[in-house]
């Protein structure tokens, strides 16, 4: 029996310099609960150092936290990357960190990069500047992510900059991906037409929330047997009746 799970797979935490400092587990999970969101993706820029505390804190919330990251490619394309478990995510993170220019964040200019624990205490600050492009091409990222059993979702394809469309003009032929994310500024029908997204590719919307109040624009519903990474993957692939529905 398939059930409907409201999902928001692109949420930033206080680790992203451009996100509010109060984007911690307590606030985000309570906001998700208020909005009825059952599956969330924690996707900070080029880092996954806050995923674990969210998973721990979510245990008392009946919310599935999928390990994610919004990686920036050499072409300056933002791509959401998801893995089933934390150990693979950390392996991926190490790979990404090796390809970031060794530059320190300037918190006064870009904002703080806070690492938290499951009780929402700030326990550390990330020194590596995260708002940068990794020296990995879109194709290299796609290949590696699928080799590692992950999922790849180009972020906010309708944005002029930092999107697959903006940077590369159109969705590259032969690029393997799991789904395509559109922002809340465009509806699915229009996005499919404007960016020539074929029927076989699943489209999702996410909040891309950097602030708590941005988490209210939830309209993606996943039809799954149970909330898990593998079920979400099946929904993206429209397998065994699992699917994604966007409601405007």
């Amino acid at each position, binding site marked *: 029996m398939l059930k409907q799970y409201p999902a928001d797979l692109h949420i930033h935490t206080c680790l992203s310099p451009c996100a509010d400092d109060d984007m911690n587990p307590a606030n985000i999970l309570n906001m998700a609960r208020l909005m009825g969101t059952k599956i969330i993706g924690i996707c900070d820029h080029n880092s996954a150092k806050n995923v674990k505390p969210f998973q721990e804190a979510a245990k008392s919330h009946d919310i599935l936290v999928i390990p994610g990251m919004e990686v920036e490619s050499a072409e300056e394309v933002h791509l959401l990357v998801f893995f089933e478990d934390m150990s693979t995510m950390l392996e991926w993170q190490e790979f990404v960190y090796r390809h970031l220019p060794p530059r320190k964040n300037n918190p006064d200019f870009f904002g703080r990069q806070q690492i938290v624990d499951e009780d929402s205490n700030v326990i550390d600050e990330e020194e590596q500047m995260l708002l940068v492009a990794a020296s990995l091409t879109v194709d290299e990222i796609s290949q590696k992510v699928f080799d590692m059993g992950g999922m790849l979702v180009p972020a906010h394809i309708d944005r002029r900059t930092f999107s697959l469309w*903006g940077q590369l*003009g159109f969705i590259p032929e032969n690029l393997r991906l799991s789904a395509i994310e559109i922002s809340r500024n465009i509806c699915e029908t229009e996005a499919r037409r404007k960016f020539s997204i074929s029927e076989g590719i699943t489209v999702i919307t996410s909040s891309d929330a950097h602030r708590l109040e941005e988490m209210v624009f939830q309209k993606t519903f996943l039809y799954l047997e149970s909330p898990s990474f593998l079920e979400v993957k099946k929904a993206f692939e429209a397998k065994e009746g699992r699917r994604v529905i966007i409601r405007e």
Partner: protein
Amino acid sequence: MTLLELREKLGLRLLTEKMDENRQVEGGYASDLLSWVMAHAKENQVWVTIQSHQNIVAVASLLGLSGIIVAEGVEVEENTIKKAEEENIPIFATQKSIYEICGILYNALAGSREKC
């Protein structure tokens, strides 16, 4: 100006196997946002960029650009060169910065116009 003159005047290295040496270059364009290039570049212009994804070939082909100059010593992916050969779009490489190569191109094009 022809592609042959372009290559010589700008000191470019041809990455694709061959090019139509007599193909005309009527202007230049520079941007790294491919969506922007699609909307603004014009036929018979040569395009200066640091993007090297194979989509640059499709954009150039679609718009009827004379060629692509990949600047700043950026390494061009093998798939991109292969695709360019299929589409008959010459790709040139230069170590010069976008700023420098555009300046040289601008002057070269202005000079070739005065001649006619």
